[in-house]
């Protein structure tokens, strides 16, 4: 016999589903930007729901649930990425990233016409995003793709806004550098 826990909820308080469901599609989309695959995006959102359900009362009191939930997803993703690595990921000090940029700079740059062609290719842009480090990709997804503000992200991890702006600047610079790669370089240079 499986014990069923009490449901302790104030009468009239919205259910967890009622609080989260209106934002689920957008959370999934953000997760997809982060992870790059539907399966991983579903896993990330699933993990978020598991983490948030015990915090339902907190969520009930949140004034703007959309950015709050998105921030929770962002933090969860970053934490998961960091746990998978042996050391903390911080693109601001990523030697790997700097090396990748140097390799690109050393290459012959693509012509403006080649860049324009890449810009018209969604698959190429999506592939370039996946070549960014997870934190750079997450920042671009957060701000440039899904349109959340850096202010909405800054407070949750006590990161100064200026630091976030610097990281976003580096992320964008890296993505633009990837655009400048001549065709065929993508397989040789990894970020």
């Amino acid at each position, binding site marked *: 016999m499986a*014990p069923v*826990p*009490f449901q302790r909820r104030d009468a009239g308080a919205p259910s967890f589903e009622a609080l989260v469901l209106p934002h689920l599609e957008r959370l*999934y989309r953000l997760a997809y930007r982060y992870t790059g695959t539907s399966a991983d995006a579903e896993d990330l959102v699933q993990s978020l729901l598991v983490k948030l*359900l015990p915090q339902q009362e907190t969520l009930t009191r949140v004034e703007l649930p959309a950015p709050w939930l998105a921030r929770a997803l962002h933090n969860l993703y970053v934490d998961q990425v960091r746990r998978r690595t042996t050391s903390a990921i911080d693109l601001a000090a990523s030697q790997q990233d700097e090396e990748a940029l140097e390799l690109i700079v050393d290459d012959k740059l693509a012509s403006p016409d080649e860049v*324009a062609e890449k810009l018209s290719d969604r698959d190429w842009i999506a592939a370039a995003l996946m070549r960014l480090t997870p934190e750079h990709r997450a920042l671009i997804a957060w701000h440039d793709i899904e349109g959340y503000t850096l202010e909405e992200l800054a407070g949750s991890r006590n990161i100064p806004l200026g630091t976030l702006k610097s990281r976003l600047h580096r992320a964008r610079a890296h993505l633009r550098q990837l655009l400048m790669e001549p065709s065929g370089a993508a397989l040789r240079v990894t970020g």
Partner: protein
Amino acid sequence: MNCQDFHQQLDDRLDGRLAPPAVAAMNRHAADCRDCAISLAHATALQRRLRELPAPALTPDFARRAFAAAHQAQQDTRRTARRNALRFALAASVAVLAIGIAFVPRQPSAINQKVAAAPTPSAQRVVQVSSGQVQPVRLRFNSPQALSNITMRVNLPAGVELQDYPGQRELSWQTDLQSGANVLELPLFVRGNGGVLTASLQLGDELKQFSVVLQTTPATGAFRMDPASRIAAARDAARIDMEDLNHA
């Protein structure tokens, strides 16, 4: 403005953070600098393309599956926490089955002291509880030795529920006993007139059963007491020890 200034301000321009005079200055520079003009065009186009990137739609049943899995995970977590809290022990004499058990009302000042007095008949198997509120009833079992894979079973009388297990009259689980005192805390919610709670320990074919009479007290006492003291008194009254008396 030079090219370095131009690139330093490019992000702020893309984000709409640049004041009109600064935008105009960038435009003037781009008009005379083909490389910077191309950089601005590419950056603007990339930003627009990023916003247009498609994403797959949620699969139709994802929401149902995701919420169900979240509730299941929470339930599993609560059950694990509850069982960890219930890891205590049964005492004793399960192995020798000669063990007796005594219930002695515990005094507030002796909460952490072992109750050594022999039980008196009037004190045995009776604990005062208040109806309409959750209160812990702690059962302590002394085991002369560590025991593994004990099956613990608790049967509740009608009108008494274990917190987090509403409507469930019987619960059982596997546990280990350590040598010495093992405490089982049961957060009980008494709705009715109390009744007899039984706890049994089984080791292989050997079974030891204990029972406790849950005797309810009126919701409003005849004596006046401040709320905090009343809660403390109810808690102490509900705290009993089950002593393993080998000679009993």
